């Protein structure tokens, strides 16, 4: 397509993309939440390393632990998706492949996130 117009000229008058600082803000918000939540996960893994299955399930399924883990999953998945989105947009320049990767990125975090949620809920209800 032989279009001599500049990119700026093409978007002028179309209004804002309605996203503004949303990506930045959500990225920082989840980063902040991830700090205590991942430290809690590290602590939990150390606590449970080498313990038998009954002890592990009883601990992971207890209310406060399960809620903290669910919060971590939510925050981490949003953070991961935003981060990988930036990587894809930075390095993949072919429009079609980029869109495919962005879709797969979303599918990946939803799949991993829901798997974790399923396991945590199952443990809480007495697996």
């Amino acid at each position, binding site marked *: *397509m*032989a*279009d*001599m*117009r500049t990119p700026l000229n093409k978007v002028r008058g179309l209004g804002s993309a309605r996203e503004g600082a949303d990506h930045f803000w959500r990225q*920082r918000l989840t*980063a*902040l939440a*991830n*700090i205590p939540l*991942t430290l809690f*996960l*590290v602590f939990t*893994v*150390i*606590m449970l*390393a*080498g313990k*038998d*299955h*009954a002890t*592990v*399930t009883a601990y*992971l399924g207890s209310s406060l632990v399960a809620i903290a*883990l669910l919060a971590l999953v939510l925050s*981490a*998945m949003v953070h*991961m998706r935003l*981060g*990988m989105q930036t*990587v894809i947009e930075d390095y993949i*320049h072919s*429009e079609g492949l980029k869109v495919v990767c962005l879709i797969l990125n979303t599918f990946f975090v939803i799949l*991993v996130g829901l*798997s*974790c949620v*399923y*396991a*945590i809920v*199952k*443990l809480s209800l007495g*697996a």
Partner: protein
Amino acid sequence: MAQAGPQADRPLSPHLQIYKPMLTTIMSILHRLTGMALYAGSLLVAWWLLAAASGPQYYNFVSGLADTIFGRIVLFAYTWALIHHMLGGIRHFIWDTGSGFELPTVELMARATIIGSLGLTALIWAVALTMTGGL
């Protein structure tokens, strides 16, 4: 659209391979690499939780895998990636306030991040190994 019009064959600005690697460059790349590693590593957390939810037999199998030399190397690297990315994130929070952009400060924070991430990872593993009764 990206290749349209007069912009198609313009020369590109110099990129990574032109410049001498610097500490700040390496830290920037490491932050992105650890982030991508943690993205993949989330599969291990999901695997562990699903294993716990699926019963003692499968949990013992997964737990046994984590206890091998290979499993421990992966978990050690995972711990470092997590701590390094976290400290890098805290560095970004400092920059978000608009401070810490002076070059000596940037260099100092870069050094603190790498030393801190290695030190904290070693500390976490020392605590873990002590609590679980050694290697």
